[in-house]
C-alpha cells in the first residue's frame, strides 16, 4: 500500500545514497535506486527519478564522483563512487542520525509508557 510508505525527510535521501555507495562501491543511478528499495524492504516511497537531483547535489559538494562506464547490458551509463570527503561526511551524518533516532525513540517511549519510575 503506497499510502503507508514513508515520505523521505529532507536530506535523508542524500544520506541513503552515500551509505549505499559506501557499502556497495561503484554503482549507476538505477543500481543505487534499486538497492535503497531492496534494503528498505520497499518501505520507502521513492520515485526513482528523484535520485538524480540528489546525485548532482552530492557531486557538487564533492562527496561523490562520477565517471562514464558500461553497464551489464553494454549501455553507456554513469557510475558513481563515494569520495574520501564523502566518507567523512557519511560518518558524521550517520552518527548524527543515530543519536537523533535514539533520542526520538526514548522520547516516544516516554510518552507511551507511564510516568512511574
Amino acid at each position, binding site marked *: 500500500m503506497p499510502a503507508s510508505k514513508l515520505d523521505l525527510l529532507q536530506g535523508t535521501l542524500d544520506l541513503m545514497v552515500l551509505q549505499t555507495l559506501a557499502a556497495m562501491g561503484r554503482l*549507476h*543511478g*538505477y*543500481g543505487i*535506486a*534499486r538497492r535503497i528499495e531492496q534494503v528498505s524492504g520497499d518501505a520507502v516511497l521513492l*520515485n*526513482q*527519478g*528523484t535520485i*538524480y*537531483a540528489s546525485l*548532482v*547535489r552530492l*557531486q*557538487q*559538494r*564533492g562527496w561523490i564522483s562520477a565517471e562514464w562506464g558500461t*553497464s*551489464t*547490458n553494454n*549501455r*553507456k*551509463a*554513469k557510475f558513481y563512487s563515494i569520495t574520501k570527503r564523502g566518507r567523512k561526511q557519511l560518518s558524521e551524518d550517520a552518527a548524527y542520525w543515530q543519536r537523533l533516532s535514539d533520542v526520538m525513540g526514548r522520547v516516544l517511549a516516554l510518552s507511551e509508557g507511564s510516568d512511574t519510575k
Partner: protein
Amino acid sequence: MTDQLRRLFHRVRSLFRRAEQDRDLDVEMSAHLELAVEENLRRGLSRAEARRQALLRFGGWQQAKENHREVRGLPLLETLLQDLRFALRMLRRSPAFSLLAIFCLTLGIGANAAVFSWMEGLLFRPYPLVAHQERLVALTGTARGESGHTGLSWPDFLELQRNCKLFDTFFVSKITGTTLSIGDRAQVVTGSIVSANYFEVLGVHPILGRAFEPSEDVGRSAHPVTVISYQLWKERFQGDPQIIGKTQRMDGVIHTIIGVAPEGFYGTFVGWATKFWVPASMEDTFEAGGYKLEDRGERWIEAYGRLKPGVTIEQAQQEISAVAKRLENDYPATNRGRSIKLWPLWQTPFNNAGTLLPTLGTMLVVVVFVLLIACANVGNLLLVRSFARRHEITVRVAVGAGRRRLLQQLFMEGLVLSALAAAGGLLIARWCSHLLVLLLPVRNGNAMHLPGEMDWRVMTLSAAVCLVATLLFALLPAMQTSKVDLAATLRSEMAGVVHGRSKSWVRSGLVVVQVSLCFILLVGAGLLLQSLQNIRLDSPGFSTNGVLVTSVNLVASGYDAQRAKNFQDELIDRVQALPGVESAALARVTPLGYGTFSSAPIVVDGYQPPPEERPSVEYNQVGPSYFATMGIPLVSGREFTRADNETAAPVAIVNETMAAHYWQAKNPIGERLQVKDKWLRIVGIAKTSKYESMRELPRPFFFVPRRQDFSVGAALNIRTQLRPEIMAAALSRELKAMDANLALYEVISLQEQLDRSTSPQKVAVTLTGVLAGLALVLAAIGLYGVMSYTVSQSTRELGLRMALGARTPELFRLVISRGLALTIAGIFLGAAAALGLTRLLGYLLYKVSPRDPLAFGSATLVLTIVSLIACFLPAWRATRVDPIVALRYE
C-alpha cells in the same frame, strides 16, 4: 562554508553547460529506464507491462529533469537570462519601435545624467583630489541690517582657528591673478592666496618640492614663494624636472618656485582652474589696498572650514556665531554689527557655485520633466505594442504563465530598453561634461573651468533614474496586460471588438500629462528668454557700442608708481593721436568686468546715519575724460582733468543715487565727503549706471581721480568707431614703440563685456530652450502616436460614418478635434502647474512677472500649432478610409 562556495561554483558553471548537461542526463535516465525494463522482463513481465512498471517506478520524467536542473543550476538567474534573450529577440523583431523608444529614453536619461554630472562636478564634489569635501563649508562675513556678504579679516580668521572646537580646521583661499607673458601675448593666470596649512589640510601633496610652512603666513611680503599647478608647469615650464628653486616674476615680485601640485588638482574656486598659489604673507603684492594681515577691519579673505565628523552645519553655525559675538564685544571698532555665516559648499556665495546654483536647479527640474515626457512616450508605445501582442500574451496565460512571471518578463523588456538608453545617455552626459564651458565666453584667452564629474555617485543615480523610469513606463502596460481575462479576451477576439475603454483612457491620460509638462517647460523657456531680452535691452548707463576696453599690465613688468604714471600719460596721448580715436581714458576697474571696486566707509557732512548703519560705498579710480569716453552723462558739475593730480585738492564725483541718499534735497556740489580720513570736495554728479551686474538695482557709487588714489594696474577705455582687431593692431604698434617688453590684453567692445556678464542667463536660456524644444518634439511624437493609433483602430467606425453619409471635412474635423481636446486638457493642467512653479526661477527672471501673459500665451500657441501638425497626418488618413474595405475589415 567552502561547501557552499563549491556548490555555487558548480551552479554558476552549469549555466554555461546547459545543453551538454541536459544531454548527459537524458542518456543517464534512458539507461536507467532500460535497466529497469530488462529487470522486469527477467521477472517475466510482458514487454509493455515491463515498460509501464519501469516508468511508474521512475516517477515524473519531466519532473525529474526539472528537479535536476533546479539543483544543479541557478533557476532564478536562468529565467532572467531567458527573459533577457526573449526581450532582445522582441526588440530585434520591431526595430522601428525599439529605436524610437531607445531614442526617447536616451535623451531623457542623458539629459538627467548630464545635469547630475554638472551638479556633482560644480556643487557637491567641486574640488578633485581634496579629502572629505562632504564636510567642507564656506565662510562669509555678514553685517546686521545689510544683505549680501563680505569676506573675513585675517585676524578674525586666526580667532576662529584658535577658538572653534567643532571644526577640524580652517583654511583661506582667495582668488587672485597675475600676468605671465607667454610669447608676445600677455596671459592672465588665475592664482590663489592661501593660508600656509592649505595643501596639508586638503590632503594634496606636491609631486615636486614642498608645500608651504606655517611660518610663511607671517610678515609683510616676507615669503615670495609659490607652488605652481601641474598644468602651468607643463605649459610654461615644459615640465622642467629642475624647476624647484627657479624663480618667476609675478606682480612685480620675484617668487621662488617651491613646489608643483599634482595633476588634476585645480585649487578651490568653482569656475577657474588655479595655476599658482602664494602664502597669505604675499597678500600685499597681489591685493589692492595695502597690507591687511593685521587689520581686523579689512574683510578680504575667502575662507573654508572642515567640520569634525558628525557635526551638523547648524551646530557649527552656533559655535561660529558665539565666537563672532565675542569678537563683536572685544573689538567694537571693527566688528560692531558683524557676524560670520556658514554655507554648504554648493551654496558658496563667493565663487561660481552661487551663480550656477539657480541655473542648475532649474535644469534639474527641466530634465526630470523631459524624462517624464520620454517615459510617457515609451509607455504609450509599449501599450500599443501590448495590444498587438495580446494574442501572444493570451496564449502564454492560457498555457499557464503566472502573473508574476508575465510581469517579470515585461519588466525585463522595459529594462533592456532603458539599459541601452542609459548607456547612450551616459555617453551623451560624458560628451556634455564640458558643454557649460562652451556656452560661456573666453576671457583673455582663459576658458572657464566648469567640468562635469562622472563618478560612481553620478553613475548610481543615473542607474536609479533608469530603474525608476522603467517602472514608470513598463508598469502601466504590464499591469494592463497582466490583467488579461482569459475568457473575455478569447471571446472578444472572436467577436472582433478591439480594446476596452480603459486602455484608451490610459493612453490619452499619458498624452495629457506630456502636453502639460511640455507647456510648463515652454513657459519657463519663454520667461527666461524675455528676461535675457530685457537685460539686453536695458541700458547699462554707458555707451556699449563705439567703446573698446583693454589693458596693459604694468605690474607684472615691474613698473613702480612713478614710471607707471609717466608711461600711462604718454600712452593716453599716443592713443588719442591715433586716427579714428575720439577719446581715451584709464580706470582702475571697468564696469561689468571681472575686477572688484574699492570700497570704503564714508562720512558725509550733515548726514546722520541711523545707529546701526556704517555707511560704506564702492568707488572707482578714473582718469581724465573718463565720463566722456564711456558716455556716462554728467548731470551737473565737471569731469576730472589732468589738473586733479597728487598736489591738487582731493575731489570726487558722486552718482545721482548717492547724491539723493546722502544729501537729499541739497545740491552736493561743493560739499565734502570723508573717505579713509581724507576729505574730498564734490565737483560733479554723474548719472547712475550699472557697475557690477546688469541686474543690480541703482546704488550709491562715486569716483575719484586716479592720480589721487593711485594704483599701477588700470583698464584702458577708448571711444572709437574702429573694430577691435584694427584697434588692437594699432595699439600693439604703439606699445612696441614705448616698451618692447610689454604685451597687450585682448581688446573687446563694452558690448562684448556686457554680453559676457549676462552669460549665466544665456546658459539658462540656451539649455532650457534646447530642452523645451526636445520636450516639444517628444510630446508631438506622443500625440501623433495616439492619434494614429486611434484612427487605425476606428477604421470600422470611420467607414460606418462614411457609409452613413459623413463627408471628408467632417471626418477630418472629428479626428483633429479629438487631438485638440487632449492638447487643451494638457494646456489647462500645465498652466495650473506653471502658475505655481515659475516663481522658482527666482533670480534668473529679470523684469518679468512669473505669470507673464506673453509667455503663457505663446506657449499655448506653440503647443496648439504643434499638436495640429501632429494630428494632421492621422486626420488625413481618416479621410482616405474606404468604407467598403473598412466594413469588411476584421
